[in-house]
């Protein structure tokens, strides 16, 4: 018991609370739009956007010459929009399937980003492929906290890592978007032609969903790297789909899975290796993504709705 109190004491608040909360916010912000992307067979677009964030960030650095979150997020956002437009153009002109168009665009743009990094003088600053992929969740600590009471101390709260309020704001925006346009998102995802006929602006809504995805990806990328972003767009929604046959419940499940992945992933990454006698910790981002994959594996084996296809015959 004493161990637990120490474990959740001042040191926990200072070193672990903010990374865990940021991990949860990032995971949920990505999992929410991921539900709709998955059902629209656009899951790859999350993948595409989180990759093109790299050239966007490098581009922003080359323009401004400084590591500053705001221009980098703008740059990433612009790259995401460029990628979405390129995907549309390739789909229409090349008449290829959407998945191929997305794959083409994001691998190419990611490669351009890596090239940019190599040929320009960015080696002195902390952007590298490793950081882009795995982020640096463990470094987002709350220096000025000296226990739970700091949560009530405005001076200490002002020193929270900026990623935390930023991600909270992004998550709030995404929750509002889904809540306000719930009917429209649901109807147009299920039956776009019907949605068009009853006056839902399906193209605009589809674009808004991609923009929400891009905002989530960019905000989360900064804190946790693209591995989590990619995993969270797909794994929690896919696992949630195997738990229920109702969209609202699927979304609740996906949030639960995202939260569980973030917490367990962080704890296992920090303490797990110690249980096996290793003095090192492993990457929290990598572990969170791994946990979400394990949850998907478990739901594939035991999820109540995993045998949906083929049940039509007995009806």
């Amino acid at each position: 018991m004493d161990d637990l109190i120490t474990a959740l004491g001042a040191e926990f608040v200072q070193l672990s609370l903010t990374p865990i909360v940021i991990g949860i916010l990032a995971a949920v912000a990505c999992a929410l739009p991921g539900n709709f992307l998955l059902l629209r067979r656009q899951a790859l677009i999350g993948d595409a956007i989180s990759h093109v964030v790299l050239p966007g960030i490098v581009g922003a650095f080359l323009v401004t010459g400084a590591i500053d979150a705001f221009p980098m997020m703008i740059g990433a956002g612009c790259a995401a929009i460029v990628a979405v437009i390129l995907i549309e153009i390739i789909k229409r002109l090349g008449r290829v399937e959407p998945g191929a168009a997305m794959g083409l665009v994001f691998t190419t743009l990611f490669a351009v980003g890596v090239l940019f990094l190599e040929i320009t003088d960015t080696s002195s600053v902390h952007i590298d492929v490793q950081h882009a992929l795995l982020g640096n969740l463990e470094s987002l600590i709350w220096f000025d906290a000296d226990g739970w009471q700091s949560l009530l101390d405005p001076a200490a709260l002002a020193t929270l890592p900026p990623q935390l309020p930023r991600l909270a704001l992004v998550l709030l925006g995404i929750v509002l978007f889904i809540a306000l346009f719930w009917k429209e998102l649901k109807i147009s995802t299920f039956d776009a032609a019907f949605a068009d006929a009853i006056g839902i602006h399906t193209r605009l809504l589809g674009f808004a969903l991609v923009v929400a995805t891009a905002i989530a990806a960019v905000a989360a990328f900064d804190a946790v790297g693209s591995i989590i972003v990619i995993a969270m767009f797909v794994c929690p929604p896919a696992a949630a789909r195997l738990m229920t046959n109702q969209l609202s419940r699927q979304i609740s499940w996906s949030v639960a899975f995202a939260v569980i992945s973030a917490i367990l992933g962080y704890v296992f990454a920090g303490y797990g290796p110690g249980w096996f006698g290793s003095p090192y910790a492993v990457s929290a981002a990598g572990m969170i993504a791994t946990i979400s994959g394990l949850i998907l594996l478990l739901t594939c084996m035991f999820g109540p709705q995993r045998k949906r296809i083929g049940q039509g015959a007995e009806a």
Partner: protein
Amino acid sequence: MSNAELIAEAGKIVDVAGKDAPLTVRGLTVSYGNKPAVFSIDASIPAGSMTAIIGPNGAGKSTFLKGTLGVVPRLSGEVRIFGKPFAEARDRVAYVPQRASVDWDFPARVIDVVLMGLYKSVGLFRFWRSRHREQAMECLERVGMADFSTRQIGQLSGGQQQRVFLARALAQNAEFYLLDEPFAGVDAATERAIVAVLKDLKAEGRTVVCVHHDLSTVAEYFDRVLLINVRRIAEGPVDTTFTAANLQETYGGRLATTHIDELRLA
């Protein structure tokens, strides 16, 4: 034909059904890529009629429906629904897409799909409420699917899925129903149930248009036909328009004359 004659001709088409007819189409052209799927189609559907749109595969029957409703962009042509542009008459129209056009593995129960038909009566930024659920249940009752309301839609047979689509259209409480192949791949019991509901709609003074491909049931189910094969071939009452000559022209000789004779006798 001179311009004056063309205008007169177009005027006649409008006159058949009247100015405020459920549907008046002039010169509708829709194209996917370079080849037009439907080319310069004129049509007018009178109120209270039940019309079958007939033509071979790839003749543009579905595209015609989608073009009139703006689901696919029009290259040219004018469409009037009850004398107005579609955007202004949207709430008076119910559209039932082809059953195969949606993914039935979508996480929804039967009632969730029917509730989508009540979209307009729920209002922006609001959620479905119990009174909407009651209305949806009434619509399911009318198509004989009330017992399946909590069933996952992917677990239904094709005929049951089609009935759910029809219930969603009933929930829209429209005056003009456009159905894309409502009898495709359904069992005989469902076909009878759907026809009965459509005839009820007609009896209530509503207008029904179906894309239909079973020529043997045209005379039994419908009172008007619109024959198209990219272009409009003929349009009018079944008695005078559903003729061997018109069918021959529509299907371009792909139907044997003896087959058509059988249809006429049936």
